[in-house]
């Protein structure tokens, strides 16, 4: 195998310590890879769609996560297999790029692999299969553009955005109040969206969660929520028309970077130094006061003395605010982050209509709300829920919904959900296959078949007869030439996704096809797996 012979006919070894490595080659390697990919897809298959089930994951430290989000499931699964890791990467890149459809992309890749395996068994070369898939994906993407609808929305008319977000949320545990959550997500995105550049910076949306209360209490705050409290218990809990000094320097004597020593050798020096120190504190507070600040937000801690001086001069302060939060506060209030006291000027102060401290529950939990900011471009979504896992899952769901809304602002094309898009381009690929001569045609056909896997899984998860339902819908699509027919997961009674208001974003779907095809191509091209043995 890995033996070669030199010119004298003596064998020598190319790969060192061969017997300690496990090695798979040729068809075996491909089959092993495909079955690993399929195994991952099989885990996610049941999570697809509005009636999909959740997975419970226990981390190495014993923490429990319950989720329906494909990317999260795969990330937390302790995957060891290389190919399985590729699938994990796949869903992660879908998550980064689009944010939604992370389950779908893996299921699609799994189905493509499954059909590729059959072709390989017939002796078709993997590269030919890969090429066929590539062509098919091109047909599918083009077809998608054709069937996509554009819809109009404006700052005042966001109904269609809300509908699309609701489709995303309906597969999560939060679907009990998907309407309100979708509205929150859309409003949040609209608040920070730059409609001219068609871009949304999701960093401006902060998602905070706190256990307790119920899901219905989740709210959108036009401002920033900081999980901190006033540095001194006796500072005022509510400040109106606050002028905020945002500092990244501690209320402490300076610590120069260069090494230095201050020697005290006489009594005078000792006293001098002490006065200096006191003056220093006094100056710091005075500088803040002089520029007219009524609230100090600081990234670092304060000395006890500084703290008291602040209280004394009636200057409320918040300490140990994280860097990200600090930036958000600066954006929201229109202030500048000031790294040195000397540089404080009145123009650099941020402005907020109302800053208040609110306490929760029976324990000493307090949070600071900064609202009515000068620039309402930064918002916070504050999630409440019965337990920690619920909050985490809601955070993930909201993130998905936010991504969907952002994608729609970037590109307002939609396709129909509920498997309608998949069925439609499966038909298109099937029809397009005939135009390609050669072995690739087989692969294109297989691609079309594989695309059926998603509506099939949807139907299966919803408790419908998968094959029967799928082909009924398929024939309906061909007969009526209506790409809006999908699987009726919610038992509404109509197959028309347009009526059910089930939408998905065009770029999300396109990205799914492209990513899945790419990964499958990559997996098919591998014909040799060399892994070091356990040591």
């Amino acid at each position, binding site marked *: 195998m890995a033996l070669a012979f030199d010119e004298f006919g003596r064998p020598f070894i190319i790969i060192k310590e061969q017997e300690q490595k496990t090695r798979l080659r040729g068809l075996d390697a491909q089959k092993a*890879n495909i*079955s*690993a990919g399929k*195994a991952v897809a099989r*885990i996610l298959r*049941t999570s697809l769609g509005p009636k999909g*089930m*959740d*997975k419970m*994951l*226990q981390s*190495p430290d*014993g923490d*429990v996560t*319950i989720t*329906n989000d494909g990317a999260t499931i795969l990330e*937390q*699964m*302790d*995957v*060891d297999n290389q190919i399985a890791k590729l699938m994990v990467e796949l869903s992660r890149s879908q998550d980064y790029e689009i944010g939604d459809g992370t389950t779908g992309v893996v299921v699609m890749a799994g189905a493509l692999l499954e059909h590729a395996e059959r072709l390989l068994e017939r002796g078709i070369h993997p590269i030919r299969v890969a090429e066929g898939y590539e062509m098919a994906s091109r047909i599918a993407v083009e077809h998608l553009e054709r069937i996509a609808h554009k819809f109009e929305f404006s700052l005042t008319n966001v109904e269609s955005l809300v509908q699309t977000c609701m489709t995303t949320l309906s597969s999560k*545990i939060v679907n*009990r109040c998907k309407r309100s959550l979708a509205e929150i997500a859309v409003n949040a995105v609209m608040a920070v969206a730059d409609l001219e550049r068609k871009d949304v910076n999701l960093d401006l949306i902060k998602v905070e969660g706190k256990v*307790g*209360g*119920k899901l219905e209490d989740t709210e959108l705050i036009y401002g920033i929520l900081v999980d901190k409290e006033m540095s001194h*218990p006796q500072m005022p809990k509510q400040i109106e028309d606050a002028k905020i000094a945002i500092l990244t320097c501690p209320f*402490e*004597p300076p*610590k*120069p970077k260069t*090494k230095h*020593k*201050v020697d*005290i*050798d*006489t*009594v005078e020096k*000792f*006293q001098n*130094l002490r006065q*200096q120190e*006191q003056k*220093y504190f006094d100056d710091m507070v005075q500088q803040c006061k002089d520029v007219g600040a009524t609230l100090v937000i600081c990234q670092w801690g304060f000395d*006890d*003395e500084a703290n*008291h001086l602040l*209280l*004394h001069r009636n200057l409320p302060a918040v300490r140990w605010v994280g860097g990200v939060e600090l930036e958000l506060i600066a954006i929201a209030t229109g202030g500048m982050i000031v790294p040195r006291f000397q540089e404080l000027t009145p123009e650099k102060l941020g402005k907020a209509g109302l800053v208040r401290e609110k*306490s*929760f*529950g*029976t*324990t000493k*939990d307090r949070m600071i709300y900064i609202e009515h900011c000068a620039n309402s471009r930064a918002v916070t979504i504050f999630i409440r829920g019965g*337990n*920690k*896992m*619920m909050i985490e899952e809601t955070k993930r769901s909201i993130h998905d919904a936010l991504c969907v809304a952002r994608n729609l602002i970037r590109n307002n094309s939609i396709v129909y959900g509920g498997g309608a898009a998949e069925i439609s381009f499966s038909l298109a690929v099937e029809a397009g296959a005939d135009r390609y001569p050669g072995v690739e045609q087989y692969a294109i056909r297989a691609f079309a078949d594989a695309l059926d896997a998603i509506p099939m899984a949807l139907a299966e998860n919803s*408790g419908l007869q998968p094959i029967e339902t799928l082909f009924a819908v398929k024939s309906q699509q061909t007969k009526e030439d209506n790409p809006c027919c999908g699987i009726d997961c919610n038992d509404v009674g109509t197959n028309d996704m347009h009526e059910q208001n089930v939408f998905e974003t065009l770029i999300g779907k396109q990205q799914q096809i492209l990513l899945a095809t790419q990964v499958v191509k990559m997996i098919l091209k591998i014909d040799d797996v060399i892994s070091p043995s356990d040591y």
Partner: protein
Amino acid sequence: MAIESLFKDEATEEKGERARMASFIGAMAIADLVKTTLGPKGMDKILQSTGRGRSVTVTNDGATILKSLHIDNPAAKVLVDISKVQDDEVGDGTTSVVVLAGELLREAEKLVATKIHPMTIIAGYRIAAECARDALLQRVRDNKEDAEKFKADLMKIAMTTLSSKILSQDKEHFAKLAVDAVMRLKGSTNLESIQIIKKPGGSLKDSFLDEGFILDKKIGIGQPKRIENAKILVANTAMDTDKVKIYGARVRADSMSRVAEIETAEKEKMREKVQKIIAHGINCFVNRQLIYNFPEELFADAGILAIEHADFDGIERLALVTGGEIASTFDNPESVKLGHCKLIEEIMIGEDKLIHFSGVEMGQACTIVLRGASNHVLDEAERSLHDALCVLSQTVNDSRVLLGGGWPEMVMAKAVDELARKTPGKKSLAIEAFSRALIAIPTIIADNAGLDSADLVAQLRAEHHKETSNAGIDVISGSVGDMAELGISEAFKVKQAVLLSATEAAEMILRVDEIITCAPRRREGM
């Protein structure tokens, strides 16, 4: 083939029915564990810690029990978590929420066994929970307008909460303590300002509420033991040696005389600081940090009572009570707000000397001194009292009140049952199951009290068939009684939180069809 090595070694995966079974069993085991503590006749548990000393806790509080368990089952962890949240959020009902979630899952298991899809069960549960909540909302009473009645309500709630705890013998006494303490808060939910001091000795009945403030500290030697019309400066400052805070400063002396000089300067500095503090015109000085002998002596000379090392909570409370501010610099004596109180004296509780501040300006804070036979009793008493205080402070804000003794469960069960009959489709089975799970709670209460639960619950159902019945289980006499007459009340907020979190948790566990457990992280030295 390669599928076996999909996961890392030791990582396990359970699918479908097996996964569901594992979570049902785990959740029900937890529910059964705490089940026996429910209700006024519920039993306590002994918890022995694995830490050093094998310390023992005797408790009846669901959250405390569950917190101390080492659990491996992920579904069980969900239940522990909801109980913790219930504790943080409303303080009471920690056992009920777990038991209700357990019962919901038990019913769900039966439905799953008859081939009903978990999603259908979830849909049914959701409708049922909504309906149950509406039913409760219709029957709440709100006595916020009438202060007298409201206070009576609070009293009843406190007694109901305490009746299942170790304090049940003296529940009237403690209910009064709790209500008084909470009324002083005037609507704030900050329980920090109610201080609970535990002193072993005496009996539970000797516990009392003190309007003033008690600090668990001794007065320094040679300082006045009693001050009238005290002016108090509350401080958080170093009273040992004032460190030079400028970075990199160090003392370098080249002769003994220099060292001595600097030492004097240091002493001088401290003396100055003390002088400044004295210049505030105070006669009592409370510091969070240590006070060294030297400044203490200076204070004693000036006839000032100096108290050192009061913990941070104590300082905050003291500042709150006396109306002073917590000071760290002392350069502007005229503008520092001083705290005032009529009298500071040393008092004895049992064998310990404590400092008592009475006649304070701000009435918000108060101290409850608990007395009891042993530390275990005191700990449990504190937990019980804490529960009662939590519930009361929440009720002050949300004054809606329900009857107790299984009454709310029966009302909900009735409404849910009626809904089930009206609902077409498989969901109605799930809704019916929800109603059965609700009835399980009065059943368990009766069982725990050693009563014939089947008989009692049947009577209760019949009673509730009439409109506007007030019937509930009277555990003391072992029969069905009128809860309004018996004065057994519960806070609406607690019941609502129990209902919603239990349904949410049950739903979460039901939705799971696969459990993936990662390999436990290897710890060093294992």
